[in-house]
């Protein structure tokens, strides 16, 4: 069985031509594509709140911020302005309430801040031209895409979320139930 499986992986690699077992996310980033260094730090802090590390990897380990940076000049180019503004709104709200940048707040202060933002209760004056609840929902949704999506989009580095969920990757492992000689699907093989 083991031999067969390896053979199959080999064939699959041939079939797909360019399957690379080293996910793109591990290459070091020296400069950001869209984000400024401060924005990147801010997103990292926010997304770590959304998906914190515990016994399993969190957003920072999964390089979730890399997904944001990549997609903001890719599929999410249309959200550039929302991010640029929204991140500023977060900073100014944080300064107003705590007299500190968001990244310098305690963990619990950050949590409380985001919970307040989620329900739209941060001071409205800091949110002119942007809607805090919808920006929160966008950050949340994009974090989930980054953490659980394919590493080819910049996040989920090393398939850490798949490891957490205990689902096999590369996917081929789930395919041990491979058609047997007579062409029938062998369901018992696992």
């Amino acid at each position, binding site marked *: 069985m083991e031999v067969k499986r390896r053979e199959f992986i080999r064939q*699959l690699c041939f*079939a*797909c*031509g360019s399957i690379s077992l080293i996910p793109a996310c591990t290459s070091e980033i020296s400069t950001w594509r869209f984000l400024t260094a401060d924005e990147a730090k801010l997103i990292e802090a926010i997304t770590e*709140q*959304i*998906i*914190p590390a*515990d016994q*399993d990897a*969190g957003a920072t380990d999964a390089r979730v911020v890399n997904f944001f940076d990549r*997609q903001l000049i890719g*599929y999410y180019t249309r959200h550039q302005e929302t991010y640029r503004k929204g991140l500023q709104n977060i900073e100014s709200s944080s300064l107003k309430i705590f007299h500190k940048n968001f990244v310098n707040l305690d963990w619990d202060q950050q*949590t409380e801040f*985001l919970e307040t933002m989620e329900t739209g209760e941060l001071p409205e004056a800091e949110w002119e031209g942007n809607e805090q609840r919808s920006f929160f929902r966008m950050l*949340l*949704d994009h*974090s*989930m*895409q980054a953490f*659980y*999506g*394919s590493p*080819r*989009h910049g996040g989920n580095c090393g398939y850490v*979320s*798949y490891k*957490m*969920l*205990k*689902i*096999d990757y590369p*996917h081929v492992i*789930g*395919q041990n*139930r*491979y*058609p047997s000689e007579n*062409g*029938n*699907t062998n*369901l018992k093989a*696992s």
Partner: protein
Amino acid sequence: MKNKHVNAIVIGAGAGGGVVAKELAVSGLSVVLFERGDWVTYDAHNDDELMSQRTHPFENPFGPDNKRHRRVFVGQNGNERIVLPFEYPFNNNAACVGSGTVSYGAMAWRFMEKDFLMKTSYGHVEGSTLEDWPITYQDLEPYYEKAEWEIGVSGDHTGNPFQSVRNMPYPMPPFAYNRDGQILYDAAKRIGLHPFPIPMLRNSVRYNGRPACYRMRTCVGFACPVNAKCGTHNTVIPIALQSGNCELRTNCQVAEVMINEKGLATGIKYFDENDNGHIQTADIVIISCAAVETARLLLNSKSRLFPEGAGNNNDWVGRNLQGHAYTGASGIFEDEIYDDVGPGACWAVGDFNHDNEGIVGGGVLCNSFFTPPYAFTRLRPPGAKQWGLEHKEFQRKNYKRISSVRGPFQEIPNFDARVTVDPEVKDHWGIPVARLSGQRHEYDRIGCQFMSDRAEEILREAGAITTWQAVGGRGLSGDQHQSGTARMGNDPKTSVTDKYGRVHDIDNLFVADGSLHVTNGGFNPVLTIMALGFYIGEYIAKNWNGGSFTSK
């Protein structure tokens, strides 16, 4: 260069169009099959959840693209906005060779006798256009069989005691249940229901020269890496091309059907992949663009005799847009029930299709396809926290413990749920776009609640410790199961085509896709669309007299 005149043009290489093109080509007619999309493969997208035809935050991997296509969506509050294909209100199916049949879940349902006789069975429903089909289940039975054998279905023909009479078994044996399927199947049995394996357009054994399915977890929303899923792209369309009588023109957007002074279709206008405009003439034109785009194309085909669009002199084109109100329940189990034997959905119960006290129509309930990790972040009991440690704990603890039971409720058609063409907004080629407006009939909510209650009962019996419902049936319908916009009927005043899919008063213009459905059954629609393709294709081929197609 001028295009050579052909016998038939088929517009849209999806479920209906692929079948019709093959039927005509093997009967000796010269055919050009037009498709706005291209061939797609597994390799281009593999099993990337963010690139799936079900979950597509970026774009639709199987088309259409965001750059060139758009629609106008009118919300329940009357607000309207332009929507792009990746947005849900666009109500997309797909755009590629094979269309939805490349990436579908591949459930292969026949409708039941009563699905063709909704008015006779249930009488008038206030505020609806509920009606009988002009053809019966018996008329379509031989063509369902053709679809099952030529395209390929795995299933147990004795499984569903409620199904209507069939003449032949399925060509392939059914799939075995996976772990959560078996647990739910046993529970459904215990409460007196009649579960059975879902018939699937997927090879359970080697068939038609293609291998058996190896049951990976990602299937619906993706192409099959080993070509074990059966669509029109790997069955009928290749046969049409091999016949030597069919040319497939991909990346071609058809803009208009030309109708002459005698009220006959003379051909089409289209744009090629370089945006150059062309004309293709033919003796017969068949539209198979799926319900939204078929209506749009008819409405954009204006002529002196049909100033409001082809076949639209009675204002029925684009009306009665239907899909399916998906509804059901989910439950968390104490033990792991997930075994990674994909794609998940494997049994169904037909007990709630017809003959339930007080319910008009009904629908089939199935255990559901596996929910991939990102989509799973939204599968939560009401009120659950969406982020932070609780989020993570939920994902980790429950990813292999949740199962859902869901199904498509047969919608009650209504006249105001409709496709028109927008007076201002145009697509990349300057063609007026589809405008979607109206809402589902209010009855759908009642039917969905009934089905969600039944789904929850099954989950509880199976041992789920926490259960919750997701009740469908609100808003505008359409989407992957879109249908109804070119209703077939015997009375030209209240339908768009006759019972052979021929547009009333235009003898050589046909429709062959989900648009024809008078009602959309309590089942996923594709096998019915394929059966209609065989039925209409055969009718055209039989009545073809080698020249113009004008005889009634």
